[in-house]
């Protein structure tokens, strides 16, 4: 099984990639990745929550030069996805495919890149649904 680039942020198994979020009933917010306290209110009743694999693109751009510490291919898409379901949550993600416009549906996939030590690791990306 591929190695997740950050075991605290994603799980990789037979179901593919899953984003490991958190949910605080008292604050009413989901968040990602899961933190001990709700990052929006400081509430301490956070429970683990597997986040939905579907969402819609809010903002997107293309990274044309490798940023410091990145050994993967360029160019690549980077953007912000609004996840399906409630309550409202936006996540930062690599984007695969040509985004036709705001609100384009996307689905979570794994993408292999060199990890911090240079060995292959799996990170998350949202792929544009044709």
């Amino acid at each position, binding site marked *: 099984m591929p190695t997740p*680039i*950050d075991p605290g*942020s994603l799980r990789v198994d037979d179901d593919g990639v899953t984003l490991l*979020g958190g949910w605080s009933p008292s604050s009413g*917010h989901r*968040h*990602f*990745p899961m933190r001990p306290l709700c*990052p*929006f*209110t400081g509430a301490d009743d956070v429970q683990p929550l597997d986040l939905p694999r579907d969402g819609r693109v809010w*903002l*997107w*751009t*293309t*990274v*044309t*030069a490798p*940023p*410091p*510490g*990145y*050994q*993967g291919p360029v160019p*690549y898409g*980077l*953007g*912000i996805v609004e996840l399906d379901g409630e*309550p*409202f*949550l*936006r*996540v*930062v993600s*690599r984007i695969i495919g040509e985004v036709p416009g*705001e609100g384009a549906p996307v689905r979570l996939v794994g993408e292999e*890149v*060199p*990890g*911090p030590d240079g060995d292959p*690791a799996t*990170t998350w990306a949202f792929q544009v649904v044709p």
Partner: protein
Amino acid sequence: MTSASQTTVEIAGIGMHPFGRFDGLGATDMGVAAVREALADAGSSARDLQAAFCGTAYGGVAAGHRVLGALAATGIPIIDVEAGCASGGAALALGAAAIESGRCDQVLVFGIEKMPKGVIRSSFFAPWQEAAGLTPAPAFFALRAQRLLRECGLTPEHLAQVVVKNRRHGVSNPNAMFRSEVTVEQVLASRLVCDPLHLWMLCSPNEGAAAVVLRAAGSGAEGRGVVVAAVSLRSHLPGSVLGEDSPMCGIDDSDITPPTTLAARDAYEEAGMGPDDIDVVECQDTDAARELLVWAELGLCEPGEQAALLADGSTNLGGRLPVNPSGGLLSKGEPLGASALGQIVELVHQLRGTAGERQVDGAQVALAHVIGRGANACVTILRR
């Protein structure tokens, strides 16, 4: 935070080492040059200083101490301040507070930086985030720019117009790195870094230093007439996925006040002024879109009015409210720890009437603004 008994803070002296690239010169050398100029301008000796505050993000351990050591002026408290792009503003806030409290009569505030070339690497991020490609600063600037264009009815041509304005202003600034005019067509023809931001729409991290001597009003020598009316440092409220704290997620941020606005509201209140009282502005133009966003966040215009202000030349030198008469970071480059104090040096010249070809006629009140990693935002209001 103001009180009747609070001491008024004057800017007694200013000094600056130009911003640019200086092979063979270290951050300490540039700091010494700027500090000596500021002390001479104030008619002070390093031995008169009661405390020193040094803004730097990449200067390393005891960066300020190295500068004071070179001046044989150690022994006093020396505080090194890191607040990302707002480091110099944070240092100014501490220096002003030291005088307002009555604890000191004269302090030094300076900023120094010698940045690596290219995209800034920050210890802010975890190695796995870098490896996953989730940390490129220009991409996050671009995402914020995309939102601004969408929500304020702006186009890449408007972004290019900001560059044209600031580069034109920078032509007569001897402290600027880029001193040539550019056209909208040239800006849009420069390399596309991250859509919609082209290379010339992004400021260059570089090197430089700037310094001010602050003095309690009425403590002896004349303060040359420029007073710190307010200086406010604020950080971000949690929630926005586009915040300078670069979170991995966010919620609906439509009701979350950005840090620039938090700092501006505090500063206007402390100074007893509003946006209409400001005659000249120096603001953070890390990229061209950031400047247009800041106009609204500072209350200088409503969101959506930026295009009209660009069209009628309001923010040009000679306009109703000139913004970045120094040429901004787009002309000067951005040495993180020094950039905020470089703005203060420019605005003190404007208020003294010594800004030469860049002079804003009759300027009485000036506003400086920086924002960056943390998030940290600082707004300073100066008056004659």
